[in-house]
């Protein structure tokens, strides 16, 4: 089975679904790791620290799915291919910003969790295998928990408007 162009959810087995879940978590973990590198390089430490936390979270989810996959299917070769599987739970590259605040970083993560929720919710419309249905329902519901977790962090921030720091790099002026 190839996931290169479209995913045939109706044909997914539990093993495929677990492998897909692992790759989605790994893709997100990798992207947050890239954001950490980018922001650390530009001394945007607060946002980098939050994204570092996201790296740990996505890694935990990936490991949990991997354990489950291994206990059920051992080392059976994976039939899913990650080469073209991008940005299901991972935030888009364009969302990083050199002067990113913690609130902006949390907003980016929240948006990514909503996107992941939609992915599983949409996939469930096509899934046929009852075990895959159970797994995807579980993963979809977890995305709600993740959204709530991020929202709780947003709520802890001091109220009031933040300066819009996006795109505030040196800009040419004519006068």
């Amino acid at each position, binding site marked *: 089975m190839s996931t290169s162009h479209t995913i045939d959810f109706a044909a997914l087995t539990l093993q495929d679904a677990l492998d897909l879940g692992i790759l989605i978590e790994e893709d997100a973990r*990798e992207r947050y790791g890239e954001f950490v590198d980018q922001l650390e390089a530009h001394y945007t430490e607060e946002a980098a620290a939050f994204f570092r936390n996201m790296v740990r979270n996505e890694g935990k989810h990936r490991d949990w799915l991997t354990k489950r*996959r*291994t206990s059920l299917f051992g080392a059976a070769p994976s039939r899913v291919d990650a080469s073209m599987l991008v940005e299901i739970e991972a935030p888009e590259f364009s969302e990083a910003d*050199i002067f990113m605040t913690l609130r902006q970083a949390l907003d980016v993560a929240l948006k990514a969790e909503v996107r992941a929720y939609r992915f599983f919710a949409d996939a469930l419309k096509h899934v046929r295998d009852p075990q895959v249905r159970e797994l995807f329902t579980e993963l979809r519901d977890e995305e709600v928990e993740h959204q709530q977790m991020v929202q709780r962090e947003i709520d802890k921030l001091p109220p009031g408007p933040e300066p819009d720091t996006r795109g505030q*790099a040196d800009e*040419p002026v*004519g*006068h």
Partner: protein
Amino acid sequence: MDVTPPAEVVERRINARQAYRSDLKPVWCPGCGDYSVLTALFAALAELQIPPHQIALISGIGCSSRLPGYAATYGLNTIHGRPIPVATGLKSARPDLTVIAMAGDGDALSIGGGHFPHAARRNIGMAYFVMDNNVYGLTKGQTSPTTPTGEQTATSLYGWPEDPANPLGLALAYGVSFVAQGVAGDVKGLARLMVEAIQWPGFAFIEILSPCVTWRGKEQYDVIRDRARPIPPEHDVTDLAAAFRYAHDPEHLYVGVHYRQRKPTFQERVTALQQKAAAKGAGNFDRYLAKFRA
């Protein structure tokens, strides 16, 4: 049942893209379009399952030309505007390698602009990815050949008075056998175009709209998103006149394959000549030189 430690299993299922990533961390600005281009390239190479040691990435100078350093393939960061000549030499000497030349808009259309038509007419078997951000980003935002008219930049404080070059239009006019346009924000779509370009037997050009968030601002993503449209599925990719119309559309930036027409590659023509010469048998070089004696 024996439970393999998670790390080991993860390693086996490791994202195929990782095989192409070098240890060097990119230093592009956060939000830069080139991150997406790099990820799309890794995805395309993984999809094609080309071993890293059979790939050579050849770049010029500029932000985008840092890319070969971030890949665990062979690579060369050449001099400004010269990725095409170096890649041409490499492909001629090692036709077995997958050669991908890459450049920014300044590299490709200004400093190295003269190399583009010759690679096209030779139909060298390589892909050429141009990451176009409409500005010289690395040197702090000067105008480039694709800077839009009226744009305020570090060197056009009251607006740029020139018309921008049209990279797709130029590629079509030069006779490039594969011409496409992709956008950095769409990693998956771009990766698919790259797969096609890398497999193309001949010179394959992709104009990649890759925003410079520092010198053009995040708005460049919005401008591209607003104007980008998929090329209509009914478009006949062998219709050059139609491809020109899409390339020069004043309103929309058409994403996808604009033109694709198979023609003999440089290597195929050279091989044919070699066979022709071999069929004639050994020549007499001294007799040939004698023609030039006074």
